[in-house]
Each structure stands twice: as structure tokens, then as C-alpha cells.
């Protein structure tokens, strides 16, 4: 049998008996062949293994560290690139109750490191059903290392990300906030959620520096006049960019859950209000543009107008006839109402529509108020709208409309996003250059003339123009004469308006230092002066010498007010 023969050969190779001399050569040949095959086998194995190793897939190395991948939520930045909202890595402390053998022991060991939980709640969580029970979302590095050193089974740490707002309360209403899953729930965070979720950054038109100044000034006035709150914004008249917007009371988006509904309400874009006398600017502009009234005409404003059982009165009664400039400077309701009748309700409505006051503004946040437009735009409506009653609009809408009248006559839709310098700005001409020149001249006189209602807004050198507005608040289907919402709208410099500031204070209370007055001229105008003084050097607005022809030619020749020549200059 061949295998016995093979075994015999193998035995002989390993333990050779004393071979016969005649067989020793044969044995040597067998040994050589065996060694040859063995060597061949080894080489084949090595070769095969080498090939296997060379072509085999490389092990994948799993990340054992926190990662912020490419799809991390984009940041929200202000127009100068300062961070308003950003995402940072955090560690979430969680429990896997299945791995916990003695919850009581674990709870007592862990308790000092989870300050937000008491022992009972912690015990409850450690014995809960489930594999992921969150214990703390913002674990500090110090507590993280201490917990790791405890070496508790079933207590783990998971890397995650969290949204932070380093500027705190500044522009909180504009920025908004996110929920626990980093999805936008308010403001820009919500409206730009798609862009931000894809990892792209969003640049706002807001300038945090100016925002701080605006918020600080508004806050001071609210405290000074014991008001309920207020709102303010600054618009770049030439681009429509909102460079600062604040609504007080406000909230810290880092702790949005602890804020009240009142604090979360955005009075700049969401709240719609009757704006009061600031609308007289629009009435004046429409009158001039349509030719319904000109700079030379006069109107008798001595008698109140009786409308549907009510009277249209002036705050300070004026005797005799006055011109268009004096109607605006003295803020005459009677004069404005008369002019509105010359304009006519249809024409007035047409202009209000063109100025974007009859539909929600195109602002890029979800908190966008829809104007309350009268159903029937009658002659009475035209009268009340002329001095800012009967039509409720948001502050941002009113500011954009007045920017058109008090600027260079173009309407530019307001925006919260930084404009791309290459992108052309859509401008709609509503008022001619002559009309807007007359309007800004008159607005300047509201501030510079001694009979004007906004004298306290005069920041020397910057030719501030403006208009005051004091509107009674609506309460129980009527007006509350004691509760006012005072507004001031200002443009500067009047010869070539670059910026518009609008500020509203809700229910200010007259103080001793204001001789118990709580009108816009006393409450808001001083804040406007303060804001202009602080922001003009930052915005690159130079003090204007109005005596120079290149500056004075942008305003009307001096007008006659109260029998005297009215001057524009403030130095």
C-alpha cells in the first residue's frame, strides 16, 4: 500500500535507521525533495499572506474625540463680522440605568457634581427606563474630569454642541433662539434656519456697537420716565439696512425658556401701533408731491374740526392761518386734517400702499406684524390717518416710509441682512427731489426752531431733522388719554440724510425734571441727541457747516416761521 510506504519514508527521514550503504543515496534524494517542497510551501504561504495583507482593507479609525463636523449650524454675525450666535462643543452627562447596579450609591456619589438636580430627582432619573437619561447638558471641564475620576458604571459623557449668544441681550429679538435640537424657533434663527443648518454663516445688517448705544439710550429713558418699555431702530436711508433695532424689555437668548411673553415680544417688527404725529411727515410729503398744497398756502387752524361726534384739536391751540411748514413744526392736527381733505382719501391710500404701509413688511424675520388697515377709507379715515390714527403699522414699516419722505424720495424695503455691495438696491421713487428737500427742511425746523416740538434732539453740528409723535393708547375700544406711546423719528444730517433713528417709549410718566411733561419732545428727543452724538463719529457722519453753499443748497431757502426767518444751523 502506497501510504504505508509514504509513512515509512517519513519515519526514515525523521528517525533514520542505520541505512544500508546502497540505500543512503536514495534517502538523501528523498530528504532533498522533501526539504524543497517544504520550502516551496513556506514561500507560497508567505507570498499569499503578503498579497492578502497588501490588498486587504485598512481598518477604519473611529473618532474617539468630540467633533464639530462640516454641517455644524452656521454662525450669525453682525455686519462687521462680530459673532451674534455661534455653536460650541459641550459634553452631555447621561446615565444608562441598565448599567447601574446600585442607583442609591451612584446618586450619592454623583450628587455634588450635578448642581441642577436634587437627590430625589437624580434617583428618579437613575432608575428610569431607557438607555439614555440626560443628567446635565452643560458639563464644565472641571466637573467632567471629577465625574470621570469617580469611575461610576452607567454614567457616561457624550459630546454634543450647544448654541450660544455671546452678546447676551443685544439684538435678542432679531437673532431669536433655537430649541434643544438646534432648530430655530424665533427671529433670524428661524427664518434663516435652512441656510444656518447647512453650515453657512448669516451676516446681519446689525452693528453690535450701535446696537449697544441704541439699547443703552432707550433703557435710560425708560428708567428716567418710569415707562413700561420701548423700542428703537436705526436705518441706513441709502440702503434700507437696519443697523440697530431694540425692543425693551428684552431677554437673554441663552436662557430663553426663563423669559416672559412680554419680554419676547418684538415691538419693532411684530407690534403694530398708531404712530401719531410722526405720520404728519408723510401727509406733508403727499400734499407737496400731489400739488394738493404748497409751501405758500395757508390754512386757518383756529377752529377744531367736528368729526362724528368727536373733535380734532391741537395740543397747543394756534390762532389764525398758518402755512405747511408751521403745521408740521407746530404739529397741528387741525392743519393736517384739512390738508388730507385736499389730498383726498384715494390718493392718500395709494401713497400709503406705495410706502408699504398696507401690507406686512418684507422684513426677514417671522415676527412680522400685519398692519391694521381701515376697511373703508373714508374722508374721516383720511383725516385721522393724516395725524397718525386709524392705521396701525409696525415701527419698521413707519421708519422705512418716513425714510422715503425725509430722505431723497426713494422707498427702499427695509432689511435685516447685510447688503451685498455688488447687488443693486431696488429703489422706488415715491417723492420728487423737490418734495423730499422741502420735507427734510421742515423736519430740520422741527428740531432747530424755537417753536418746534423736538428742540431737545438738536445735536450740535449734525443737523438733526425730526418729528415728534404722541399717540394715546387704545384701551377697551377707546383711547386712554393718560396712557401714551411717544415716538420720535429723526434723520441726520438734514442736508443729505444718511440715517434715520426712530424711538418709541411706552407709557412714560411725567417727572419733576420734565415739568411733568411726558411728550415725545421731553421723553425721546434727548435720547435722539445722545444717540446722534455717539453714533455719528462711528458712522463716519461729519459735522455739517450749513453756511457752505454745497450744504445749504440741499435745503430750502430760510422759511418764515412765527413771523421770523427760521434758521437751520445748530452751531
Amino acid at each position: 500500500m502506497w501510504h504505508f510506504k509514504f509513512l515509512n519514508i517519513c519515519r526514515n527521514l525523521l528517525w533514520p535507521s542505520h541505512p544500508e550503504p546502497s540505500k543512503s543515496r536514495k534517502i538523501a534524494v528523498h530528504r532533498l525533495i522533501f526539504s524543497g517542497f517544504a520550502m516551496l510551501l513556506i514561500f507560497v504561504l508567505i507570498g499569499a499572506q503578503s498579497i492578502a495583507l497588501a490588498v486587504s482593507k485598512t481598518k477604519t479609525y473611529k473618532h474617539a474625540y468630540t467633533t464639530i463636523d462640516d454641517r455644524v449650524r452656521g454662525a450669525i454675525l453682525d455686519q462687521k463680522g462680530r459673532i451674534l450666535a455661534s455653536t460650541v462643543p459641550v459634553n452631555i452627562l447621561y446615565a444608562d440605568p441598565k448599567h447601574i447596579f446600585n442607583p442609591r450609591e451612584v446618586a450619592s456619589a454623583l450628587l455634588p457634581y450635578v448642581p441642577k438636580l436634587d437627590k430625589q430627582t437624580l434617583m428618579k432619573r437613575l432608575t428610569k427606563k431607557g438607555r439614555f437619561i440626560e443628567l446635565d447638558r452643560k458639563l464644565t471641564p472641571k466637573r467632567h474630569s471629577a465625574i470621570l475620576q469617580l469611575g461610576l458604571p452607567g454614567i457616561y459623557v457624550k459630546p454634543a454642541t450647544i448654541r450660544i449668544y455671546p452678546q447676551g441681550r443685544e439684538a435678542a429679538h432679531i437673532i431669536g433662539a433655537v430649541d434643544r435640537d438646534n432648530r430655530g424657533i424665533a427671529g433670524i434663527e428661524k427664518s434663516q434656519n435652512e441656510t444656518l443648518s447647512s453650515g453657512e454663516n448669516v451676516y446681519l445688517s446689525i452693528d453690535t456697537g450701535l446696537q449697544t448705544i441704541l439699547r443703552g439710550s432707550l433703557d435710560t429713558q425708560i428708567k428716567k420716565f418710569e415707562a413700561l418699555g420701548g423700542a428703537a431702530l436705526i436705518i441706513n436711508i441709502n440702503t434700507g439696512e437696519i443697523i440697530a433695532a431694540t425692543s425693551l424689555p428684552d431677554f437673554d437668548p441663552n436662557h430663553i425658556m426663563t423669559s416672559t411673553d412680554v419680554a419676547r415680544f418684538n415691538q419693532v417688527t411684530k407690534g403694530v401701533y398708531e404712530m401719531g404725529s410722526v405720520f404728519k411727515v408723510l401727509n406733508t410729503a403727499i400734499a407737496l408731491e400731489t400739488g394738493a398744497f404748497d409751501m405758500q398756502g395757508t390754512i386757518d387752524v383756529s377752529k377744531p374740526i367736528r368729526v362724528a361726534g368727536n373733535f380734532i384739536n391741537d395740543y397747543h391751540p394756534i390762532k389764525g392761518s398758518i402755512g405747511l411748514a408751521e403745521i408740521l413744526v407746530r404739529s397741528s392736527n387741525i392743519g393736517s386734517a384739512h390738508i388730507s381733505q385736499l389730498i383726498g382719501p384715494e390718493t392718500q391710500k395709494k401713497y400709503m400702499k406705495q410706502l408699504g404701509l398696507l401690507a406686512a413688511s418684507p422684513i426677514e424675520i417671522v415676527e412680522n406684524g400685519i398692519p391694521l388697515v381701515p376697511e373703508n377709507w373714508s374722508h374721516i379715515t383720511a383725516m385721522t390717518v393724516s395725524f397718525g390714527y386709524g392705521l396701525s403699522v409696525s415701527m419698521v414699516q413707519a421708519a422705512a416710509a418716513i425714510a422715503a419722505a425725509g430722505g431723497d424720495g426713494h422707498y427702499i424695503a427695509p432689511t435685516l441682512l447685510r447688503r451685498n455691495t455688488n447687488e443693486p438696491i431696488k429703489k422706488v421713487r415715491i417723492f420728487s427731489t423737490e418734495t423730499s428737500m422741502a420735507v427734510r427742511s421742515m423736519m430740520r425746523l422741527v428740531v432747530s426752531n424755537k417753536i418746534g416740538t423736538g428742540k431737545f434732539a438738536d445735536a450740535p453740528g449734525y443737523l438733526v431733522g425730526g418729528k415728534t409723535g404722541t399717540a394715546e393708547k387704545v384701551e377697551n375700544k377707546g383711547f386712554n388719554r393718560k396712557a401714551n406711546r411717544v415716538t420720535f423719528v429723526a434723520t441726520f444730517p438734514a442736508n443729505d440724510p444718511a440715517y434715520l433713528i426712530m424711538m418709541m417709549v411706552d407709557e412714560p410718566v411725567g417727572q419733576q425734571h420734565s415739568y411733568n411733561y411726558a411728550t415725545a419732545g421731553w421723553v425721546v428727543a434727548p435720547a435722539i441727541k445722545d444717540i446722534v452724538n455717539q453714533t455719528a463719529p462711528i458712522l463716519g457722519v461729519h459735522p455739517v457747516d450749513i453756511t457752505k453753499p454745497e450744504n445749504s443748497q440741499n435745503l430750502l431757502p430760510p422759511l418764515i416761521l412765527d413771523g421770523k426767518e427760521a434758521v437751520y444751523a445748530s452751531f
Partner: protein
Amino acid sequence: MRFVLLSCLIIAMLGSGLYFAKLTVDEQYRTLKKLEQEISSQTEHNYVLKAEWTFLTRPERLLRLSNSLLGMNSITPERILPISSIPMRRSATKLIKNAGGAKNVAF
């Protein structure tokens, strides 16, 4: 037999070569991953540092500090002048002319 042995040798050499190449690639891959990890970690640090920097340089804080520690105020309009109001230095040509020609002027 010689052919077999030679083939084996070549296969063994190629195999070893491939094996070493793979080892090198593996090593490089590991370095790459390590670098990626480092970049990721640095990016994270960057996020945190940027947020911290923004928090510390927020205008509200700077305004408060500059008011309380430095007593700084806004620039008043009297201190802002147009560039034309600054007296300019006399031009070089005038200097040259006054000196009686280019040769006499020491630059």
C-alpha cells in the same frame, strides 16, 4: 525546478514589497487621521476661543469699562474737522524754489 524556485523568489519579493508598501500607507493614513483629529480639535478650540473673545470684547462691556476705568466719552463735533482745515506742509517744489535750485537742497 530552477524556474519554480525563481518564481517563488520573485513572488516572495513582490509580496514583501507590497507588504511594506501597505505598512507605509497604513502609517501615513494613521498620521493623516491624527492630523485630521488635531485640526478638528483645534477648530473646536477656535470656536470656543472666538466665542470667548466676542464675549469679552462685546461693546456693552467695553463701553462700561471705558467709562468707568478710562473716563472716555464720545468725540464732540468741535473735535472733528475736515481734512482741508489742516494746514499742509509747504510743498517740496516751494522748498526747492526758495533754496535756489535742486542742487542746494539737502534731502
